[in-house]
């Protein structure tokens, strides 16, 4: 990659290191809504063990979390709360929409369910499944890690 000055090269290296650090320690928010939340918990259980990807702890406070895994169906009453939690998370932040209900409303095409959380918050990775298996969630976190390393949203120079 052509660089104009040694300064730019160094900044580029710092950015890479920062992205590697961020992608290796993605801490999710405990945002469990319904059945997918149980599979999210199972993904931290011994058989699937999300901790080895860096998600060692799930932070209860949105201020301390990087990743919001919206796991489960989003009801109309809960929608403003999810938006508020997303706003409370500090940048850089990412969102996985886990399961069919979070991605598109799922089996519930009715008055009560928001047809996709991406109508309320921006989503980085969509996961199909009802519920998806925990190794699917591991793959989704892998995709988030790839997104972090490749830049775009997030990175050391994050945009809001």
């Amino acid at each position: 990659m052509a660089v104009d000055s040694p300064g730019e090269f160094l900044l580029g290296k710092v950015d890479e290191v920062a992205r590697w650090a961020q992608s290796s320690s993605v801490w999710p928010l405990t945002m469990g809504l319904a059945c997918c939340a149980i599979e999210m918990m199972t993904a931290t259980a011994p058989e699937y063990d999300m901790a080895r990807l860096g998600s060692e702890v799930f932070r209860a406070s949105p201020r301390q979390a990087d990743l919001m895994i919206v796991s489960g169906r989003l009801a109309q009453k809960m929608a403003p709360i999810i938006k508020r939690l997303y706003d409370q998370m500090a940048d850089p932040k990412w969102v996985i929409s886990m399961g069919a209900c979070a991605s598109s409303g799922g089996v519930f095409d009715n008055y009560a369910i928001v047809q996709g959380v991406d109508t309320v918050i921006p989503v980085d990775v969509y996961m199909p499944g009802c519920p998806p298996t925990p190794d699917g969630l591991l793959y989704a976190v892998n995709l988030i890690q790839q997104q972090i390393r490749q830049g775009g949203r997030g990175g050391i120079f994050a945009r809001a």
Partner: protein
Amino acid sequence: MSVDSPIPAAAPGPPPSMSMDVVERDHNRMVLSIGPQHPSTHGVLQVLTEIDGEVITRAEPEIGYLHTGIEKSAENLFWTQASTVIERMDYLSPLSNALCYILGVEKLLGVTDLVPERAQQVRVLLCELSRIASHCVWLGTGGIDLGALSGFFYAFDLRERILDLNELSGGARMHPNYLRIGGLRDDLPAGFLDRLDALIAMYKPRMNELRNLLQSNPILQDRMIDVGIISADDAIAWGLTGPCLRASGVAYDVRKTFPYSGYENYDFDVVTRTEGDAYARFLVRLDEMDQSMRIIEQVRKNLVGGPIMADDTKFTPPPKETIAVSMEALIHHFKYVSESFRVPPGDVYSAVEGPRGELGYYIVSNGDNRPWRVRTRPPSMYNLQILKQIAVGELIADMVVMIGSLDPVFGEVDR
């Protein structure tokens, strides 16, 4: 939010659904909103708590944050399709929901006697496995709420074996949709019984480990004994069922009192205790897991061969193998899938003993190929209501203990 814009914008102040007026403000007291996003509320529950120092003076649970409109969806789906959405109510033990609904529809059809014995036994087997799996989640998350993180891993590993069996028989870990009106979707696959035997063999050592870790743990005992005491009269007045009722001394278990699906043939005890506190509910659920394993062992020993679907083409699909060789079977299958069958008009109340209590469905049919109404009797909702009463006078730190001991599942509370 008006019905014209169903997607609400974020409000600048507190979310509009939070009614602070229900909890009085007194300058000495603080109003604390626990939830709906909280690691220990077991789902989306908001408890508007008024506290005086650390003592709770008033607690008002707010539900509805997971209202899915499942009952309205069920009215617009065929009889066979409705069990898919109904399974997602109590998502920790989906097979109990499906079984209760299917028993109700079979009563309306008048074909309860046509369900073959093997199908009934497998239904009992899977329901008891679901009960153990649900109690594993309760045990693991209950431990986490109190800081006992290791128990979670052991409990969820036990649950994995059960989900493996679900996946093997039904195809999916959590919502297998394996039960059908008239029997089962398909026979147990090869390897199921071997895995079941392996599970039965590993259960006792694993439960011993969990009991050693949690039951005799002095910190757990200190936090749970004499917390959230429910008297028997209160339990009956508030409509509690399941382990919450039995821990207060009332020996009511739907499997014994109104047996279904062959439960009268199995030998098991109804576990009761009299103290009515959180520790009593804890012990009742642990002992219930052992009783469930007892039933599973009996089913395994006495499992008969034979068909797994009722012998009546009016409400069952033709066997899959016949579709390739018979045009009439193919047409019948097509009509079954695209139009479903009709259920005679009438209403029925069907109840099973779910892990949380008496799960019931009041099903109304008007003769059509879709249910007219499926009303759920949600045990978690009635169990959770009593929080208003038992939280008063306890410490704020006991709130998570009480919620955990009532074991609500919000898919069922909010539907």
